[in-house]
């Protein structure tokens, strides 16, 4: 897949070409491209004069980054303590079984990526699911299927409007 290196360079420039802004730069690339393509990281390494291994060290340390393309819809299950205490882990378990993937993975048809998140700060609604930034509260395994159906039927264009 072609990677827009022009966009990568623009992002680096916007951060003032500073080595210290590496994390901010990677965040902006991730937002733009939905993941961190290798070619983009090679460009960052060249432009900022940081060894590629160091960039990979940072990219694999922070959870915000992913080196693999994500699905059309990202399902985040909150596993914060309050949600856990109200049964959040069961919701995750249910989703893993339903979608046939482990937490962190993406379905083969690239429709869903399943992730866990440690506390979104909406504890009154726990357990919580967030799909493409839309919050679903007071979830139990029972309520998952009708929600999934909404996204399974959506077309590519639908997910774009939920990204700011």
């Amino acid at each position: 897949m072609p990677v827009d290196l022009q966009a990568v360079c623009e992002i680096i420039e916007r951060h003032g070409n500073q080595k210290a802004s590496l994390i901010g730069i990677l965040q902006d690339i991730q937002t733009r491209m939905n993941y961190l393509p290798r070619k983009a990281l090679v460009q960052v390494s060249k432009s900022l004069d940081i060894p590629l291994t160091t960039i990979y060290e940072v990219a694999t340390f922070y959870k915000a980054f992913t080196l693999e393309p994500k699905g059309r819809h990202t399902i985040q299950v909150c596993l914060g303590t309050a949600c856990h205490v109200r049964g959040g882990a069961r919701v995750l378990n249910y989703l893993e079984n339903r979608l046939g993937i482990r937490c962190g993975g993406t379905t083969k048809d690239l429709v869903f990526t399943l992730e866990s998140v440690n506390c979104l700060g909406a504890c009154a609604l726990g357990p919580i699911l967030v799909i493409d930034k839309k919050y679903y509260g007071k979830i139990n395994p029972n309520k998952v299927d009708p929600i999934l159906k909404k996204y399974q039927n959506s077309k590519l264009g639908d997910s774009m409007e939920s990204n700011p």
Partner: protein
Amino acid sequence: MNLPLKNISDLRTLRHLLQKSRDKNKPCMTICAGTGCQATGALEVVEEFRKEILHQSLEERVEVRATGCHGFCERGPLVVLRPEMICYTHVETKDVHRIIQETVLEGKVIENLLYQHPKTKERIIHEYDIPFYKFQQRLVFGANGEIDPTSIEDYIAMGGYQALEKVLTEMDPEGVIETIKRAGLRGRGGGGFPTGAKWEACRKAKGKEKFVICNADEGDPGAYMDRSLLEGNPHSVIEGMLIGAYAIGSEEGYVYVRNEYPLALTHLGIAIEAAKKYGLLGKNILGFPFNFTLKINRGGGAFVCGESTALMASLEGRVGEPRAKYIHTVEHGLWDQPSNLNNVETWANVPIIINRGADWYRSIGTETSKGTKIFSLVGKINHTGLVEVPMGITLREIVYQIGGGIPKGKRFKAIQTGGPSGGCLPENLLDLPVDFDRLQEAGSMMGSGGMIVMDEDNCMVDMARYFVNFLQEESCGKCTPCREGLQQMGEILNRICEGRGKEEDIELLQDLSWVMLDTSLCGLGMTAPNPVLSTLRYFKDEYEAHIQEKKCPAKFCKELISLSIDPEKCTGCGACLKVCPVEAITGEKKKVHQLDGEKCVKCRACYEACKFDAVFIQ
């Protein structure tokens, strides 16, 4: 008013003009638009109010204001009509027309939108009478319900930046530090370190430049106080940092905010831009030889970056690995320069102390813990939300008076404070006062403010496992005791929860704990054993049941329970069959259904779906 404000007189004039032009008696709908309420549709409610008011040409009669988090998250969306303080809960867009017609125009109260006490069933009209609010002391958090967080003028009008004025005109840096020391403010991020002493050490340190940093990496799962403060009143933090920078001699500040807090990032960004525009950030602030700039850095999703040295490494663009702290960050911190790092809530307390004085602040709280603390009261509790209470209040008062007790008639089992670094306290310690030192003595800690309530259906061994697994994921891996210790603890706890526990496991867990406590490089590893040690101390019987009898007394641990369908209660409605993800349930309509134990993955979807109590767990 010309911007930027050039001197104190300009600021005072602006404040005066703003206060004069605002009619305190004009009805104002303050609607909570914090992340929690947004998730239940608050923004749609705000839009509907604005539309209706425009449509009926009522702009002169009533104002609509979207504010930050009010704190009563369980009952959102919340709408409070000022000045009367009539509080409506669970408001939906379909209620808006009625509220405008009956309450705003006709002065009537709508009963079914009022808060109802879970036990007495009494309907309460005014926010200040609702027990959730009544027993709090909302010094820091109170403004959240009043102001529009995207408006610097709202902040200035209610007295904002007066503390900065006082500091610049009447106090010298040493005087500010003395005031903070005298007030007894201790860090609200979890460490409880005396803030005044930290500022003093940083002021005295030598370096070519000094930094002030705000730790908004709030990583404790279940805690969201800092997020709500930044969303709802970002200027209070900016003002605190300005005062701190003046006291320490710093010209550059950073706010390190978790990536997972988009609204807080947005509102803080707006506030900083506004402060720059008004001349409250930048060069020669208000005409004084005082410069200060503030930048926002987003976290990358690493709990360990809440640790101060790891946070500073992250600000430098490196991985968040901590380092030993016998070299103090106040002397050698960010870029090896003197750096003063404080938590969001700590910074927000500073303007209050300056405005009202150290002696007034000292009158609140206990001997060693002054002031108030904001907690996120969550879990198995009726009134989930953010509460601000004076230090010294007991856990029992928080859980029952403010929190409204445990839902569904269940029995209280434990309360967890301090996040993954804290401990679980049992029912017989509910009368413990909330105080840095008392909580520590009991085997827990204040922490950043997360307060998780658990009931009889929660398994304490599972809680220990939950925290250990969380920390295992988040450990940076640099030091052996934490990296290997957490892994071993995790394996042991998993075995116990799965029914493969051994007799010697308890002693092994304790030994591992002491090693990690003593030899880990940073606070993450050092405090990681706390959940294990506190559950072993107070709930040893549950560990023993898991190990010796292979039973989970709370019927929580998957491998130790089995689900079945009671043929006497089953009506054959098929609700369970529909939701089973692994097709373990079979049966015809109106005939008793069967659950295949071999296929069952214990997700409990059937248990939740059954309306006849026919699915039981043993």
